[in-house]
C-alpha cells in the first residue's frame, strides 16, 4: 500500500512507521475521511434500495430514492465546500505527522463503520417516511417495506454503540463502560428512538395503527442521527471524536440539519392529518403495551436530549458554562427504564387488539417466581443490600424468564405432544425468535450493567516490586516494570501475577505507551476476563522511589454488557431473515402467511 504524502489529509493523519491496519482505518479516523465513509455508506444504502426494492411500487421507489438523493446532495456539498478530503499539499513532506495514538486500536477498524451503518441506515426509513407523506398514504405494506431497513439500521447501531463502549472501557483505563458523555448520548439518542420505531412499525404492519406516529419516529430517528453528527463533528463538544474545530463546518451542518429536519417536520405537519386512522385497540392489548414502550422510550430520549443540549444552549445564549453529568442521567433515565422493563416482561404475552392482563400474569407466575427469587437472593447475599440493584437484577430475570415463557406458550411446550411442539417451533416465524433473542440480550445487558455498577471494586495505590494487594478475593502481586519496544511506540510494561486461593489465575501486563512521532502517551489496560467478571489493571507513573501508581478493578458481570448487546443485535438479524421482512417480500406476502393460517 502506498502513502501519498501529497494529500494533506494523509500528511495530517499518517506516518510511514504506522502499522498497516491503522494506515487503512485512519482513512476514517479524521473529519474529512469520516464524512467520506458517511457518504459511501449513504450511497451503498441508496443502491441497496434501488437494487433490492424490485417489488416497491415505482412511484414510491422513485420518491424514496429522490429523498435519499437529496440527503446525499447535502452531504456532498458539505464535503466539497468545507471538508475536501483530497486537498493537495505542495511541496509534499517526506513523511506524515502521525496519528492520534488513542485511535491506533483495532476498535477504529470496526466501531465507526458499524456506527455509521446504523446512523445512515436510518436515512432509508427517513426517506420512506418522506415518500409516504408525499403520497399521503401509509398502509401495512409500507410498514412491511420499512421494517427491514429499520431493523438493519438498529442492529448495526446496537453493535456500533457496544463496540464504542467496549473500546472506551479498555482504552481509557477508567474501568467504566458508559460515561453519559455527550458524544455517547449522540449515538444513544437515535438508538432509543430507533428502538421505539421498530416496535411501532410492527403495530403499523400488523394492525394498521400508529401510522402517523411511526412516520414521526422515522423522521426523528434520522434527525437525531444528524444531530449526533452535528454534535460530534462540529467541534462544539470537547471529545476524542471532535476532529474539527472549525465554526464554518459547524454552521454548515447546522444549516443542513435545519433544512432536512425542518423540511421533514413541515411536510409532516402538512400531510400527517390526511393519513387515514387505522385499526382500533383496547388500552390493555399488545398495541397498548407497545404504545407504552414507545412513550417510555421517547420520553427517555427527550430526557437524554435535554441533558445533552442544555449546556450548549445555555452557553450559546451567553449564560453560565455548565456541565451535566451522570447524576442527571441516572436521576431521569433510570426511573423511566424500570417501568419499561416491567412492560417488556408481559407485553409480548398480551393478545393483539384486546389483551388480558390477569391471564398473562397467571401464565407468567413462573417468571414472577424467578424474579422474586433473584431479588431475595441478592438482598440475602449482598452485604451492602443494594435495593436498586436487587430490583434491576430481578427485572432482568423477569424479562429473561418472561421471554422464555412466551416462547414456550407459543410452541405449547410440555402441554402438547413433543412432535406437535416441534412442528409449532418450526412453524413459528423467524421474527418471533428474533424478538425472543433480542429481549434476552437486553436482559443480559441489564444484568451486566447492574452488577458492575453496584459491585465494582476499585483500588488505587502505589505498589513496589514484590508487594501484593487483594482485590475482591484475588491476590495481585506486582512484579515490576520493563521497557518493551512496539511497532511505532515504546512501552513501559508492568507485570502482575494474579492468584486466588494460591492458584495462579492470570498474568496481567498493562502498558504505558509512548509514541515518539506524535509525542503522546497512552495507557493500555490489561484485562483478564472470565465469563463472570473482569480483572482490570492499569499501571501509572513511577514515584521515583521504586514504586508505581497502579489501578486495579474487579468488574463483576461486565462482559455481559457486550454479550447482551451482541445478542440483542443478533435478535435483530434473526428478525431480518424472516421471509416477511426480506426486502421486497410483500409480493409473496399472501403465500408467506398461508402456512401459519393452516396450522
Amino acid at each position, binding site marked *: 500500500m502506498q502513502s501519498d504524502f501529497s494529500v494533506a489529509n494523509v500528511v495530517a493523519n499518517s506516518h510511514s512507521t504506522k502499522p498497516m491496519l491503522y494506515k487503512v482505518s485512519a482513512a476514517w479516523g479524521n473529519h474529512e475521511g469520516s464524512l467520506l465513509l458517511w457518504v459511501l455508506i449513504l450511497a451503498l444504502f441508496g443502491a441497496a434500495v434501488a437494487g433490492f426494492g424490485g417489488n416497491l411500487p415505482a412511484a414510491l421507489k422513485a420518491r424514496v430514492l429522490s429523498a435519499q438523493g437529496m440527503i446525499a446532495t447535502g452531504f456532498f456539498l458539505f464535503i466539497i465546500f468545507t471538508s475536501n478530503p483530497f486537498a493537495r499539499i505542495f511541496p509534499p513532506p517526506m513523511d506524515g505527522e502521525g496519528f*492520534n495514538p*488513542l485511535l491506533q486500536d483495532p476498535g477504529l477498524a470496526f466501531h465507526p463503520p458499524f456506527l455509521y451503518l446504523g446512523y445512515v441506515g436510518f436515512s432509508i426509513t427517513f426517506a420512506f417516511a418522506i415518500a409516504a407523506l408525499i403520497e399521503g398514504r401509509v398502509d401495512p405494506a409500507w410498514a412491511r417495506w420499512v421494517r427491514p431497513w429499520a431493523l438493519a439500521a438498529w442492529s448495526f447501531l446496537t453493535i456500533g454503540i457496544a463496540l464504542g463502549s467496549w473500546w472506551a472501557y479498555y482504552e481509557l*483505563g477508567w474501568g467504566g463502560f458508559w460515561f453519559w458523555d455527550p458524544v455517547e448520548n449522540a449515538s444513544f439518542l437515535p438508538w432509543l428512538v430507533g428502538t421505539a420505531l421498530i416496535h411501532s412499525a410492527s403495530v403499523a404492519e400488523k394492525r394498521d395503527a400508529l401510522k402517523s406516529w411511526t412516520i414521526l419516529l422515522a423522521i426523528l430517528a434520522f434527525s437525531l442521527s444528524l444531530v449526533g453528527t452535528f454534535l460530534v463533528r462540529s467541534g462544539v463538544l*470537547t*471529545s*476524542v471524536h471532535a476532529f474539527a*474545530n472549525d465554526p464554518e463546518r459547524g454552521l454548515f451542518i447546522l444549516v443542513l440539519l435545519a433544512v432536512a429536519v425542518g423540511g421533514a417536520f413541515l411536510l409532516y405537519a402538512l400531510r400527517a392529518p390526511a393519513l387515514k*386512522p387505522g385499526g*382500533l385497540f383496547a*388500552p390493555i392489548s399488545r398495541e397498548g403495551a407497545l*404504545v407504552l414502550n414507545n*412513550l*417510555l422510550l421517547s*420520553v427517555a430520549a*427527550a*430526557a437524554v436530549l*435535554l*441533558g445533552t443540549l*442544555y*449546556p450548549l444552549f445555555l452557553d450559546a445564549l451567553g449564560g*453560565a*458554562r*455548565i*456541565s*451535566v*453529568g451522570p*447524576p*442527571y442521567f441516572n*436521576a*431521569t433515565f433510570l*426511573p*423511566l427504564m424500570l417501568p419499561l422493563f416491567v412492560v417488556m416482561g408481559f407485553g409480548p404475552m398480551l393478545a393483539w387488539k384486546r389483551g388480558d392482563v390477569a391471564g398473562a400474569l397467571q401464565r407468567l407466575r413462573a417468571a414472577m417466581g424467578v424474579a422474586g427469587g433473584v431479588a431475595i437472593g441478592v438482598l440475602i447475599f449482598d452485604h451492602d443490600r443494594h435495593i436498586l440493584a436487587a430490583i434491576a437484577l430481578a427485572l432482568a430475570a423477569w424479562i429473561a424468564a418472561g421471554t422464555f415463557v412466551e416462547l414456550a406458550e407459543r410452541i405449547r411446550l410440555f402441554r402438547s405432544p413433543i412432535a406437535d411442539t416441534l412442528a409449532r417451533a418450526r412453524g413459528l416465524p423467524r421474527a418471533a425468535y428474533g424478538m425472543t433473542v433480542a429481549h434476552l440480550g437486553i436482559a443480559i445487558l441489564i444484568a451486566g450493567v447492574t452488577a458492575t455498577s453496584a459491585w465494582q471494586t476499585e483500588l*488505587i*495505590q*502505589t505498589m513496589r516490586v514484590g508487594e501484593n494487594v487483594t482485590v475482591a478475593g484475588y491476590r495481585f502481586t506486582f512484579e515490576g516494570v520493563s521497557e518493551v519496544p512496539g511497532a511505532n511506540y515504546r512501552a513501559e510494561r508492568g507485570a502482575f501475577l494474579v492468584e486466588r486461593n494460591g492458584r495462579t489465575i492470570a498474568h496481567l501486563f498493562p502498558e*504505558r505507551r509512548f509514541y515518539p512521532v506524535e509525542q*503522546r*502517551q*497512552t*495507557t493500555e489496560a490489561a484485562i483478564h476476563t472470565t465469563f463472570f467478571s473482569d480483572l482490570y489493571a*492499569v499501571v*501509572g*507513573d513511577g*514515584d521515583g522511589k521504586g*514504586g508505581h*501508581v497502579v*489501578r486495579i478493578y474487579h468488574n463483576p458481570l461486565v462482559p455481559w454488557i457486550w454479550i447482551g448487546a451482541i445478542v440483542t443485535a443478533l435478535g435483530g438479524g434473526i428478525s431480518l431473515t424472516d421471509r416477511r421482512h426480506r426486502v421486497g417480500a410483500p409480493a409473496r406476502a399472501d403465500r408467506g402467511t398461508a402456512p401459519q393460517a393452516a396450522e
Partner: protein
Amino acid sequence: MKPKRRRLLFVLIGLALLGGAVALALSALRDTMVFFYAPTELAEKPPRAGASLRVGGLVEEGSVVRDGTQVTFRITDLTSSVPVTYTGVLPDLFREGQGIVVEGKLQPDGTFAATRVLAKHDEKYMPPEVAEALKKSGQWRPDVAKT
C-alpha cells in the same frame, strides 16, 4: 365518538407522562448541573460551600507535587491560581503548562479537592472552557493554544 375519546385518552396520558418527565428532568438538572469557574472567578465570587463545580485553566509550571497516589498542583488562568488536590492516576495528557479541567469541590481552606481531572484527548487544542478562562482573565494568546 368512542375511538375519538380513546385517542384523546392516549394523548392526555402521553402529555401527562411528558409533563411529569419534563418536571423531573428540570429538577434533576437544577440539582445536578455543575457550574464552570475560572480561577479568577473562584477568587472573586466563591460558590456556595459543598457545591460540585468545574475549574479550568493551565497547570502551573513547577507546581506539581506527587506523594504516592496523592497529587497537588495549582491551576491558573495566569491572573489567579487555585491549589488542587487529587488522589488517583492522572490522565496521560496531564502535564505542566497543559490546559485541563478539574471537577470537584472547594474546601473551606480554599483548596480544591478534585474528584476528576479531565485533559483533552487531543493536545492540538485546549478545552474551550480553558480558552474562555484565559480570555476572561485577559491572558489569552492564540499561540498558547498551540503548545
